[in-house]
């Protein structure tokens, strides 16, 4: 049953599948939120979702527009202050998976959400790091979701907002960071995982119908592939239903623009 689906949908669903029932997940707004909630509503009903606004073990019925929507608090086990969230829960090492995205990513999955162009004379001033710099290093591992394109997938970041695998190899360990960093990068075209040695993000699975040429055309560095590259299983009808119903509920709750994400 491979219903027709959009690139955004397979991206969200492929990310959702990587989440486990026992994960404690630090969720960002947008696609990470959609992916985490799809996981919760399909194969991982026991997953714990935490948003940086302080909501612990929240079970929203619609996707929040902001990281601190009342819906998150209403459906949470409890809500803690933001200093406590960052000290006891994130820095305390209690989060197994953090989700990140960004305006720019490089081949070691370092991310830029700060600025395009020079910091002091920006071409585009982006919102900034928010929780990302510490999410990147305090969570057990990091999943990244980003639509692929040459503007975002760049040879060199204008600014490193959050550490991925740095310059590759054992760079994280050399910096004293004990967590795994980005273990999975899901795009609208394919799935990358870090090479075990070099830590360069390497394509391990290509979404149905996508070509290697397409992938390279949308990437600002020479793309590497794993020895065995799989084809991403297309979204199942159930996965698509859950995702679309979630977006539909969200749109009804928030008004039309909510599913732009």
């Amino acid at each position, binding site marked *: 049953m491979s219903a027709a689906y959009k690139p955004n949908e397979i991206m969200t669903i492929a990310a959702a599948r990587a989440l486990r029932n026992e994960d404690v997940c630090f969720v960002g707004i947008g696609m990470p939120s959609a992916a985490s909630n799809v996981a919760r509503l399909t194969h991982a009903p026991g997953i714990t979702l935490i948003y940086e606004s302080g*909501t612990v073990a929240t079970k929203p019925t619609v996707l929040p527009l*902001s990281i601190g929507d*009342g819906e998150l608090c209403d459906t949470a086990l409890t*809500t803690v*202050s*933001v200093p406590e969230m960052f000290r006891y829960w994130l820095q305390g090492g209690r989060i197994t998976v953090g989700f990140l995205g960004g305006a720019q990513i490089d081949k070691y999955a370092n991310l830029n959400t700060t600025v395009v162009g020079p910091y002091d004379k920006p071409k585009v001033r982006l919102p900034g790091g928010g929780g990302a710099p510490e999410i990147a290093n305090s969570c057990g591992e990091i999943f990244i979701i980003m639509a692929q394109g040459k503007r975002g997938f760049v040879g060199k970041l204008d600014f490193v907002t959050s550490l991925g695998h740095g310059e590759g190899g054992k760079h994280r360990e050399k*910096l004293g960071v004990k967590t795994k960093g980005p273990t999975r990068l899901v795009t609208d075209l394919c799935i990358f995982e870090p090479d075990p040695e070099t830590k360069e993000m390497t394509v391990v699975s290509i979404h149905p119908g996508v070509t290697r040429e397409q992938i390279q055309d949308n990437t600002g560095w020479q793309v590497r592939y794993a020895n065995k590259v799989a084809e991403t299983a297309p979204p199942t009808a159930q996965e698509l239903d859950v995702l679309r119903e979630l977006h539909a509920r969200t749109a009804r709750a928030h008004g039309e623009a909510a599913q732009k994400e």
Partner: protein
Amino acid sequence: MSRVLSLAEAVESVVRDGDTVSMEGFTHLIPHAAGHEVIRQGRKHLTLIRMTPDLIYDQMIGMGCADRLVFSWGGNPGVGSLHRLRDAIENGWPHKLEIEEHSHAAMANAYEAGAAGLPCAVFRGYIGTDLPKVNPKIKSITCPYTGEKLATVPAHRPDAAVIHALKADREGNVLLEGILGVQKEAVLAAKRSLVTVEEVVDDFGPRSLNACILPSWTVSAIAVVPGGAFPSYAQGYYTRFNAFYKEWDGISRERDSFLAWMKENVLGKTPDVFAAHVRALRIAAE
């Protein structure tokens, strides 16, 4: 001991030209009405601190209230850019805006340290990011036991903290509930504080033994402004008006449309409009 004042009096007594001001609220309980009053009173040369400067700081920056911004995430949540903030940083309009940029963890720790009376916050942070290259305030200490290098930032000690809360009681104590953000810390870290509330009640009544309450003697001024967080929300009073966050993207994109909106909706208005906004929201929901 807190005093109950009109919003105009409260802003006048708490927020002064040249102050370092924290107007906090983490999506929930953002003090929009107080921000509008600061704009109406024409405050200048403020250093604005906030983890998530959003619409109200965009408005204050666009109206020229701020010389400096200390922040960790400056966007319109769920929507996109803050155009007035970008215009100030990218083009210096209406004038140059200095920025001091942090991560959320750093900002939250800096408030915590401020509330705790410490000169600096110590945490595990900033490893492998470029932020310390552009922010000389980010330093480090070495753990005397493990040798680990830990990040430090100066504690936030604002001249004034401005927050919106659910209610005050007759003694001037203030209750918050729901998403608490860093508001308690901001008030405790500040020299002066202003809390706008939805209502004043005789007594908070039955509540958790561990409710988040700011005692009267930690607050300088209280102003009763029903709807004062709109278009943000107040748990149990009204929900977030998401449509306006999206609308703001269009209003704020150009300087002219921004100024026209501010003139009509802020400069020419009083705090009463917030109660009207919330009434309209309720009617729409029925």
